[in-house]
């Protein structure tokens, strides 16, 4: 299995993720990747409404958000979260990757988009970019997964 250098916060702590998808498999798959990247699962949600509540409760560093979900779709959830938390970092994860969808998500405040099935190396690079905060920076990983972070 490919090894990834751990993605860490600036304070050297694990990145905390909220994973939002109505598919249990999709969530498990993303959680597996998060662990490969040295991250910590802070919460899960199966629809947009629960995602908003979970975001307010756990204040994650990153949200991985599906688009097509019951009750409230991902793009609407992004809009509502970003309205309250302008610094929210949300990455859309969807199998429907046409331009209108991507643009709509970005206009509502999502930081990036990744198409399913998700390739770990693609998600890793996107997360590294989003975590860097500076669009011109690549973000520097600070430790390898499994290494101590003293």
């Amino acid at each position, binding site marked *: 299995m490919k090894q990834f250098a751990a993605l860490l916060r600036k304070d050297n702590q694990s990145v905390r993720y909220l994973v939002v998808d109505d*598919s*249990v*498999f*999709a969530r*498990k*798959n993303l959680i*597996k990747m998060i662990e490969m990247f040295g991250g910590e699962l802070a919460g899960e949600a199966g629809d947009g409404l629960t995602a908003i509540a979970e975001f307010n409760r756990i204040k994650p560093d990153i949200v991985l958000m599906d688009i*097509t979900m019951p009750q409230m779709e991902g793009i609407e959830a992004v809009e509502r979260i970003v309205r309250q938390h302008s610094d929210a970092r949300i990455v859309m994860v*969807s*199998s*429907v*990757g*046409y*331009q*209108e969808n991507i643009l709509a998500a970005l206009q509502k405040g999502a930081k990036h988009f990744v*198409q*399913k*099935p998700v*390739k770990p190396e693609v998600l890793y690079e996107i997360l590294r970019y989003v975590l860097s905060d500076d669009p011109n920076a690549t973000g520097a990983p600070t430790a390898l997964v499994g290494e101590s972070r003293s």
Partner: protein
Amino acid sequence: MRMELIQPFINAADAVFAESLQGPTKIIDVEMGEDAYRRKGVAALILIKGDIEGRVILDISPEVAVKVAGVLAGTAMEASEQVVRETVCELANMVIGNSVTLLNDQGFHFKVFPPEVHMHESGLEGSADTEALVICIETPCGDIFLNIAMRYLHRRRAERSAVPALD
């Protein structure tokens, strides 16, 4: 049969299965079907309506579904109706999502309906006038069947307008 409408589904299915099931895939059988579709296992039916319309059926045996579930989840899954149902839906969603992305970027606009799962004896009666392409794809988890019937909406409009009105 409009291959330019069907090809994106075949390409997407091949790519999605290879990527998500982490192994090589091969199209081992392709045939035209004009009769009502005979389900082979558990099937997800997805309807598409808009500039183009039709339906896609993704069909797999429960045994294959459980193997797929294990690969998708990254851990062995116990067989259950819910696992099978969610697996078929997840695969269908990924295939359809990737296909409609290709078609939408070509300028077609349409609505994709959520998957309708058929796993018991009743349900999923095909339409005898639906010309469909039935494809069997070999994957590391077993065979997956796709039944695709797509057409342009304007063709149907033309067909309708050609029928004399009944007074």
